[in-house]
């Protein structure tokens, strides 16, 4: 693997290899005094975040440090981006400065792909840490790791992705990855929040949440992305919450083994009720913990082998 840009096109075996590595990393780090592995000693990882993020940036930084890579964080605010430097020039600068891997989050869909093209002649790998409304592959991988852990597998499981699918890169990455891993995915959202062309995705769609709940193995709630909404997608927050929010009554309609995921940050009281988010059925903190192991696994697969 040279870059990780999307889960679309990530093969079953490749995805499974990353997830297996993440499992072993979790096991091997469990209960250890020294949570540091020498594997990426001498490699340099640069995170480049052009959009706000807490968990993803911190998670990548910890992952890199636990693998002994040198991690440098660049944020758009404090860098030459503020002076008007283009993404291409910034990327070439970071590569020339010795980056073995650039982890990029960008508000424009496709930015990491352009970056990967510009860096094709260098030895720098590119990881997409979320691009606009396109993809967020490591989030999908950590969701898959959490589902494997909680459900014992993904093949044949029925998983609903609920809410603002239109603006969600998490949903897109999850749809591709879960389909590749053999899950049955149903998107549940109001028609205004389903993207055009969704009929070509490997999913089914539904507008009514309640009727789906009893048949699910997992439900993934999406944040309503008000910052990307420039128009009226639903009448009011209250109405959205009544129709698509996961409350205690709906939690009770899920089978006993079913698990609740949320990529965070959560809007409690909007798409997920507080008691649901804090219930043992929710795997939301597991997702964050698994995020570190999955990102370690991604860095391992990108940087630890021989150069391609």
């Amino acid at each position, binding site marked *: *693997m040279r870059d990780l840009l999307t889960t679309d096109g990530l093969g079953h075996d490749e995805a499974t*290899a990353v997830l*297996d*590595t993440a499992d*072993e*990393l979790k*096991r*091997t780090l469990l*209960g*250890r*005094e*020294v949570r*540091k*592995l*020498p*594997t990426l000693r001498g490699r340099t990882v640069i995170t480049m975040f052009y959009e706000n993020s807490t968990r993803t940036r911190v998670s990548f930084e910890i992952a890199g440090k636990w693998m002994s890579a040198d991690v440098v964080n660049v944020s758009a605010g404090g860098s030459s981006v503020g002076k008007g430097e283009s993404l291409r020039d910034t990327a070439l600068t970071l590569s020339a400065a010795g980056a073995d891997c650039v982890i990029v989050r960008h508000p424009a869909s496709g930015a990491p792909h352009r970056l990967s093209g510009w860096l094709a002649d260098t030895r720098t790998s590119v990881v997409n840490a979320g691009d606009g409304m396109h993809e967020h592959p490591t989030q999908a991988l950590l969701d898959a790791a959490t589902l494997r852990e909680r459900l014992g597998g993904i093949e044949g499981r029925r998983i609903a992705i609920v809410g603002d699918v239109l603006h969600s890169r998490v949903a897109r990455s999850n749809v591709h990855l879960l389909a590749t891993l053999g899950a049955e995915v149903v998107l549940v959202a109001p028609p205004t929040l389903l993207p055009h062309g969704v009929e070509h995705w490997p999913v089914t769609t539904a507008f009514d949440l309640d009727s789906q709940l009893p048949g699910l193995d997992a439900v993934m709630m999406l944040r309503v992305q008000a910052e990307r909404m420039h128009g009226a997608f639903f009448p009011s927050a209250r109405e959205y919450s009544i129709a698509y929010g996961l409350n205690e009554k709906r939690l009770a309609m899920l089978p006993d083994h079913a698990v609740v995921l949320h990529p965070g940050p959560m809007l409690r009281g909007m798409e997920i009720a507080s008691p649901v988010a804090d219930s043992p059925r929710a795997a939301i903190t597991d997702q964050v913990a698994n995020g570190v192991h999955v990102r370690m696994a991604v860095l*391992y*697969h990108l940087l*630890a*082998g*021989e*150069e391609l």
Partner: protein
Amino acid sequence: MAPPRGAAAPAERELLSAGDVARTVARMAHQVIEKTALDGAGGPDGPAEPPPPPVLLGIPTRGTPLAHRLAARIEEFSGVAVPAGALDVTLYRDDLRRRPTRPLEETDVPVGGIDDRVVILVDDVLFSGRTVRSALDALSDHGRPRAVQLAVLVDRGHRELPIRADYVGKNVPTSRTEEVSVLLAETDGRDAVLIRGQ
């Protein structure tokens, strides 16, 4: 009958049969019991307080089943239960960047850990010593053992580091180009040690 001089050497030769492997593991178990004073045989003042039993850690792939077999034999001969587990060293190897990405293997440190215990690393073949070097590094991230020993089924020589084994099943002089493979029922369906020539 030995092949006539000058004829092509047989491509593959059996160094140890299934019976040999079983006897070798049993002999190594006796040596471990003796060396770690597991049977309570103390100094001239009679039996000393028995030390806590050693922890056997196999290096995957084939070190792991070997460690479990050795532990079972030790318990059978001495009556002392000996914890056995696995220690993957992939993340500590010095040749990661020379090969395609390797999948990780299982690490399973027995409950109770390794602090202040004698740890016996178990592997199938001792060759350059680099795997053992990686294992020593891995071990020090898991805790601080009282002592570390090494048990190998086959020592084929050609060390590249100052490392030696405490328990050796069989010493086999080899040339560098030969390939020694240990087969175990758990991983390969049968027990044998083979050498493939030239």
